[in-house]
């Protein structure tokens, strides 16, 4: 980058990206309230970004870049309406309002409604008329401010696929006349559950990638954590939002210790706990305390956070309170019965009561057939058999687990373990 003009254009591009990251949810939300359509709002905001990339290198970055982008996007909306000669009185009034307020640096938003706008944006992005794939893509795009390329990279799908998902999602929302509003009180728990589910899915995809060469993509999990923290500010009276934040904080605290320099997974008992992020652990504990203070108990995410907290607060692996973890898994299993939770409970039981008791739980799971094809079932069974001294059977299980996993890093670890058993 020897050319100073190119260098400054690149600097402005990065600056625009940073501003977009910080302001995009508010900009799109504000616009969506004006134009009544999230898809159109997002398109207008993107056009304003293109203008910024052209004008800021020449004119300098405005004092309030977010306000600038919003004002430019609104003008574009009005221009569009004018071009299509569909100026009804409402639009005319809006245009007048904008024309008389020519200072593009003046904040265009009303601070009292902004947070509500962003919350509406979250609910629209996770609206039940959209498929889960579309909810995830739209949330990362319009609430998180990630580019299509970033989302594609994170989920290992072609950029065109993500683009298509987003375009279709916007069309679906328009066609279904989804209103730009916070759901009614009686609908709120269900709709929030859907929002939590989307963030949980994003976090987990980063935490243990379901496929590909990398075992985890922490930046994706950290984005989910950021969005969850943000959501907890928008709906602070909802207990589970704090449970969700706590879970993410605890899990994220281990990122620095979960892989070696080469990207090899390091499993929980082997992790260097001095590398766990104490700040995030403290934040997780604080979030759980906030949930408990609301006095309505812990739900699905809060219980999982409680388990993560047991790990996070044990100074050494040997100090882990496995009995408490077993109880929390039992509570979780009653709240949301799932064979995966039973499998995790079996692991906890193997630590508190020994591998023989745990093997009985795992064998029941095998017999039920409910987890057939899930690589962690033979993986856990192999570990238990190994601890019981049944090496030959253990090796067979680990090899089966290696065949079933779609993650290359995990496969290598399983095969190495199997080979070590003679």
């Amino acid at each position, binding site marked *: 980058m020897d050319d100073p003009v190119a260098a400054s254009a690149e600097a402005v591009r990065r600056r625009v990206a940073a501003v977009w990251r*910080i302001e995009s949810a508010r900009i799109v939300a504000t616009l969506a309230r004006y134009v009544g359509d999230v898809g159109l709002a997002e398109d207008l905001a993107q056009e304003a970004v293109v203008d910024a990339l052209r004008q800021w290198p020449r004119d300098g970055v405005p004092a309030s870049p977010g306000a600038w982008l919003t004002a430019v996007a609104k003008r574009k909306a009005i221009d569009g309406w004018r071009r299509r000669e569909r100026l009804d009185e409402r639009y005319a009034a809006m245009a007048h309002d904008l024309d008389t307020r020519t200072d593009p640096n003046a904040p265009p938003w009303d601070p009292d409604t902004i947070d509500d706008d962003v919350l509406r944006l979250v609910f629209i992005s996770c609206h039940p008329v959209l498929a889960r794939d579309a909810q995830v893509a739209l949330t990362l795009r319009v609430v998180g401010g990630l580019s299509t390329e970033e989302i594609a990279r994170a989920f290992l799908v072609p950029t065109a696929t993500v683009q298509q998902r987003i375009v279709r999602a916007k069309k679906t929302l328009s066609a279904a006349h989804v209103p730009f509003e916070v759901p009614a009180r009686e609908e709120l728990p269900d709709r929030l559950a859907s929002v939590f589910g989307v963030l949980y899915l994003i976090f987990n995809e980063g935490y243990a990638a379901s496929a590909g060469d990398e075992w985890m993509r922490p930046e994706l999990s950290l984005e989910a*954590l*950021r969005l*969850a923290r943000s959501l907890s500010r928008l709906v602070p009276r909802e207990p589970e939002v704090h449970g969700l934040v706590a879970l993410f904080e605890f899990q994220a605290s281990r990122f620095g*210790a979960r892989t070696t*320099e*080469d990207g090899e997974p390091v499993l929980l*008992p082997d992790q260097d706990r001095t590398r766990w992020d104490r700040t995030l652990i403290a934040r997780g504990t604080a979030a759980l305390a906030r949930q408990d203070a609301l006095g309505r108990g812990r739900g699905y995410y809060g219980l999982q956070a409680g388990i993560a907290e047991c790990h996070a607060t044990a100074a*050494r692996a040997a100090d882990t309170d496995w009995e408490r973890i077993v109880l929390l898994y039992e509570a979780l299993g009653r709240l949301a019965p799932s064979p995966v939770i039973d499998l995790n409970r079996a692991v906890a039981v193997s630590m508190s009561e020994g591998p023989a008791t745990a093997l009985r739980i795992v064998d029941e799971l095998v017999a039920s057939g409910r987890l057939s094809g899930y690589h962690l079932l033979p993986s856990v069974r192999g570990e238990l058999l190994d601890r019981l001294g049944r090496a030959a059977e253990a090796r067979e299980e680990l090899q089966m687990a290696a065949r079933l996993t779609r993650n290359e890093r995990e496969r290598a670890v399983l095969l190495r373990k199997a080979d070590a058993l003679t």
Partner: protein
Amino acid sequence: MKYMLIMRSNDEAVEAYNEIPFEQVIEQMGRYNESLINAGVMAAGEGLTDASEGVVVDFSSQPPTVTDGPYGETKELFNGFWILQVSSREEAIEWASRCPLSPGSKLEVRRVTELSDFPQDNEWIQKEAEWIADAERAKADE
């Protein structure tokens, strides 16, 4: 990635700052902190008490000398910090430049090191290997 914003001021800035009504200072900083929290990027942050309460341990001699504050020759005072979790250096700078500070104050933006910053033959890695070996032995003893 994490960045630390380090707040620095000189004596004059601190004096000028003391002229501003405390309520106003608290309100402006409060709004700034709230925007960081609402965006989900604030990992930690603390202010520091007056430098006169501070102590400096100086390693230019052995054993180190300990000096009470305030420190005569110091040109800059370290007043507080934020730890932000952001996606880029530019994002950290963007947040830093929105901080309500006045002339004479500076914010230094520094990246917090990550595991990937350390070379493979680093003592951290060796320490981990030892630790894993210990854990394996402990497991075998169970």
